[in-house]
């Protein structure tokens, strides 16, 4: 089964063509967003829409930046996103290790309880959760938004548990027999071997914090502690919405996340070759 070079080239170009076609479809919303952010107000809701801004209005960007205290909002959002991501990754990986690797009787039962907790729609727990934070005196601070991150999120624990379970058991047992403590196995083997999964969790948590609207809306009461997604609402006055500025600000807001994604997913390619470890 050796392929002639010509066939290989054809297959490779065909593959690229397919990927390019897919990318075009998937890039549409983003292209739309960027082009909209350069349109004059009159063109935003034109129907049927036109893609190309006439004229290209670069001034939307400086105007959008001047409209809201961007640095302060970015600072707040970054603080929330970074500490929330850190807490989530740390706590979720620990809990997932306890459920997937450590052999103890309650592991599966606890896992099932944990799964069931995510089946209750969040809408009905909003008020009781609010009551708790009010009792704690945390309403109006960042605490209701970040502290729970340190107490593990069931979805990510589940995800990491599934990944940890794909690691060959013999490998971990061998390490234990060689005298590694569980913490060492967790820290030196499991975390390293699950890098793609951790990257996914880091990325998902970070974006969730970065874009979260409802959480900050409910718990923050001070303009000075607002986040970017709350700040975006400032463009939507009741009778005088600045959609073009909103689009510009949204573009700026998702740029860092796109860059983060681009960087993080590169570590996928470096993938771990298990054969090397086993040998």
């Amino acid at each position, binding site marked *: *089964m050796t392929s002639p070079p010509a066939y290989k080239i054809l297959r490779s170009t065909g*593959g*690229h063509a397919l990927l390019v076609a*897919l990318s075009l479809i*998937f890039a549409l*919303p*983003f292209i739309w*967003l960027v082009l909209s952010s350069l349109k004059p107000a009159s063109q935003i809701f034109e129907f*049927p*829409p036109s893609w190309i801004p006439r004229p290209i209005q670069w001034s939307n960007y400086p105007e959008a930046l001047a409209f809201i205290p961007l640095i302060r909002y970015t600072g707040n959002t970054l603080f929330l996103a970074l500490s929330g991501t850190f807490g989530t990754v740390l706590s979720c990986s*620990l*809990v997932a290790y*306890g*459920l*997937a*690797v*450590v*052999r*103890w*009787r*309650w*592991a599966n039962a*606890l896992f099932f*309880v*944990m*799964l*069931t907790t995510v*089946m209750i*729609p969040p*809408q*009905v*727990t909003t008020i*009781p959760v609010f009551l*708790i934070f009010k009792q704690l005196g945390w309403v109006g601070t960042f605490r209701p938004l970040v502290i*729970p991150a340190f*107490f*593990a999120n069931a979805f990510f624990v*589940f*995800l990491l548990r*599934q*990944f*940890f*379970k*794909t690691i*060959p*058991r013999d490998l971990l047992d061998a390490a234990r*027999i060689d005298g590694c403590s569980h913490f060492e196995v967790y820290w030196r083997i499991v975390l390293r071997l699950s890098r*793609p999964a951790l990257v*996914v969790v880091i990325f*998902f948590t970070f974006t969730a914090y970065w*874009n979260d609207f409802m959480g900050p809306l409910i718990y923050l009461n001070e303009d000075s502690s607002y986040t970017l997604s709350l700040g975006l609402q400032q463009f939507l006055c009741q009778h005088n919405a600045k959609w073009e500025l909103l689009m510009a600000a949204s573009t700026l807001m*998702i740029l860092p996340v*796109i860059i983060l*994604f681009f960087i993080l*997913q590169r570590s*996928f390619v470096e*993938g*771990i070759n*298990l*054969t090397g470890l086993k040998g």
Partner: protein
Amino acid sequence: MRQSISNEYLTGLLFVLPWIAGFFIWILFPLGYSVYLSFCTYDGLTAPLWVGTRNYTRLASDEQFWKSLWNTVYITFIGVPVGLFFSLCLAFALNQKRRGISVYRTIIYLPCLTPVVAMAVLWMWLLNPEVGLVNALLRKTDTFVAAWSAGMLRVPIPGWLNDPLFSKPALILMGLWGAGGTMLIFLAALQDVPLSLFESAEIDGAGWFHKQLHVTLPLISPVLFYNILVGVIGGFQYFTQSYVISSGTGAPQDSTLFYALYLFNNAFPFWKMGYASAMAWILFFITLGISFVVFRLSARHIHYQGE
């Protein structure tokens, strides 16, 4: 080993402690409270008033409740598998060592990052029955097919979001844009598939498709299981898109009134937190039942390297 195994109890507990603590602080009370509320009328302002099982009996005769349940079952059992299959295909397509693959991955993930307000305008336009891009393509196809079949075959030109029959397929179609998230999880799982296994399959002379089916799929089955289960839970809690598209009304003719949307409407705009809590607990048992079935069915097919 005996020594360390007996110690595992404490170790296991210690590792899981953050979640257990969190469970007692932020989960147990809200859940218990919502059980209690499901037997009360509660508007959020006056104290809850015990009414026994009335919320549950009223639900049984609530036409919108059944409609929303049907819509949700529809989106879960059609939309979720379609989405999963599509994401898996994307993950396979993007799991290669190719020049520029990082760029492709980033682009396919982009719609998951684009704010919903910006997306909504685009959706409405693409699926607009009169001037939308999708229908323009369908009309072209129709002319072509009709000419070719001498008018025997016609392509339907649906009203999409205006038509109760097509509004859910329209939502599923739009949902495919967000396949990047699930794709990413699959992709992460595919990174873990040891090359050595592939190499041995290569020697056996297995074809690409055969290899994926018999080597890759079993290896990523724990993650596939995760995506199925999370997909089902997410399907039952389907909310944001329908909220944006119908601004919360579920129009046309309740065809986009999903369970979580009706629950939200009851909880906040309609001041019926007790009723919403009853809905939440019914949903809980439905999801639990289906998850249990998924568990049972997949138990045989999941291949944990660890066991």
